Structure formats: structure tokens, C-alpha cells
């Protein structure tokens, strides 16, 4: 359930089709995932999962896979 919401957050924030969102997707690897989209993504993740992310985690969120790992720190099991 959480991963479905996570994927949807990525699709919405990056404005890309769902097929693009894989574990190997990395920040800045596609033009849609730039710093502006990254902050939109952060806002969306904080909104849907009701968390406030640490600045360090925002900076570390370098890929879709890494995002899942980081969210687990906030007890969000993706």
C-alpha cells in the first residue's frame, strides 16, 4: 500500500509515466527529476505520509530505491 502511494507520488511530482519509476531511477538521471522536481516530490511525500523529513535525508534521497530505504526510517514500510 505504502509503495503504491510512493510510486504515485513520484509519477505526480516528476510528471512521468509509472513505467519510468523503478528502483534504478536516480536523481538527475532524467530531466524531469531536477532540483525543482525534487522539492515538489519532498512536499508530496511529506503530505501523503504525514512526516517531516530531515534535511540530511532530503539530500540523501538520490534514487527511488534510496527513497524507500529512507522512508523506512520513518516507519513507512515501502
Amino acid at each position, binding site marked *: 500500500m505504502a509503495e503504491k502511494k510512493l510510486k504515485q507520488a513520484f509519477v505526480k511530482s516528476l510528471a512521468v509515466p509509472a513505467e519510468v519509476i523503478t528502483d534504478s531511477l536516480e536523481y538527475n538521471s532524467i530531466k524531469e527529476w531536477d532540483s525543482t522536481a525534487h522539492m515538489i516530490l*519532498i*512536499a508530496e511525500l*511529506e*503530505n501523503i505520509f504525514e512526516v*517531516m523529513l530531515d*534535511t540530511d535525508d532530503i539530500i540523501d534521497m538520490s534514487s527511488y530505491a534510496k527513497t524507500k530505504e529512507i522512508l523506512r526510517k520513518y516507519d513507512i514500510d515501502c
Partner: protein
Amino acid sequence: MVEINLTDKHVLITGATRGIGAASAKRFAAAGATLYLNGRDSNKLEALCEQLNEEYKVTCHALPFDVSNADEVKQGFQQLFKLTKKLHVLVNNAGVLDDALIGMVTPKQVENTFATNAHSVIYCSQYAARLMQRSGGGSIINIASIIGRVGNVGQAVYGGSKAAVIGITLSLAKELAAANIRVNAVAPGFIDTDMTKQLTEEKYQEREDSIAMGRVGTASDVANVALFLGSGLSSYVTGQVIGVDGGMLI
């Protein structure tokens, strides 16, 4: 007379225990805002919250943390996040004044002044902006200084830190506009607070004589502008540095 109603608006003010911060807290309380007051002295914050709650019937929470410390700011905002998921206004007011001629400036003065006056604005704005996005927008008000605009003898460090506040304001205004977050600075002149009471009588008079309006400013003079910037009356104002200095010339 235009009445400002900020009922249902959530406002965080740093350095709220005295001077411009305390005056701003009173102004926003009078407008009906829910307040989160920050400072380093939790007893003073609690006392002010109690007073504002009694006088204006507003909800007020004390949030003591050191704004110059990134870890404490993180913890402070995590605490704020537990209290509310919304933030509409941030007044970055916390500041220190530590003057010296350039030959006598110590590294500790530089580090402490920049950390409290400028780094704090970055740290607090980082978290506040994200909460404001959840609320659909907001207003960040940074208390700078006339010294940050024009400089003064013996105030390279203070002036530098306040010039940094202005630079941060101008950049954030551009960056956050798309998120409907306005960012403005207020540049007070010579204001009657504990900070200016440190001056000798001679220096105090010299400053007063340089003010075209012929009087020293009050903390409320500055708080009034902060309230304007935090309200819908300034809905199309961003990236501005508004002087509140009575026509002071330095």
C-alpha cells in the same frame, strides 16, 4: 480603519521573549493568530504565552531552541510538526548585536553573530517553507537592519550578517514564489530595545539626532510592518526590504 484578522493562521516568531519579537507576538496575538514563540529562555516564553492567552484569548505554544544550531532547529521544527501540520507565517527575528572595530573583531564574534543572525534564517526557512507549502503558501518575514543596507563604523560583523539576511530574502523570494510563499525583509533603524540600550548616552543621542522624524523607533513600529507582511494586505508583496527607520541617515 482596516482590521487584520489572522484567526486560523499559525505564526512562528523567533527571538520572541523581548524587543521586536515580543512586540510582534503581541501584534499577531491581537490579530487572532495561533502562536509558536521561540527563544532560548523557556520560562520567559511560557510567561509571555500565558499573558497573550489571557489578554487575547489565543493559543500560544512556547518552542525553546537555539536558532543558530542546525540540530536544535531540526528538533524544534519536529516539535512544531507534532503540534501543527500548518504554518502560515515565520518571523525570523532572533538576533545579536556585538560591535567592534575591525582590528578588534574576534573569530568567536564573527561565528556567533553570523550563526544567530544569518544561518538561523536559512535553517528556519528550510523547514518553514515545507510546512507552508502544505498550507498552500505563507509569508516569511526576516528582520534585517538599516546597517545591513548602509553599514556603519564598528559594525562590519553585524552589518555583514544583516546584509546576508537581505541576500537570503531576495533569493528565497524568487525561489519560493511558485509555492505562493512570500519572503520579505524589514530593515529597522534605531529602535528602543535592550539592544540599543547598550550604547553610551552620547552614542544614543548621536543616533537619535540622525533621525529625520526626530524620535527613536519603537518595537511596535517594526511589529506593525511585520503584521502587514504576514497578512493578506501584502498579498502581492515579495522580495522587498522595507525600512522602518524614521528617515535615519548614517
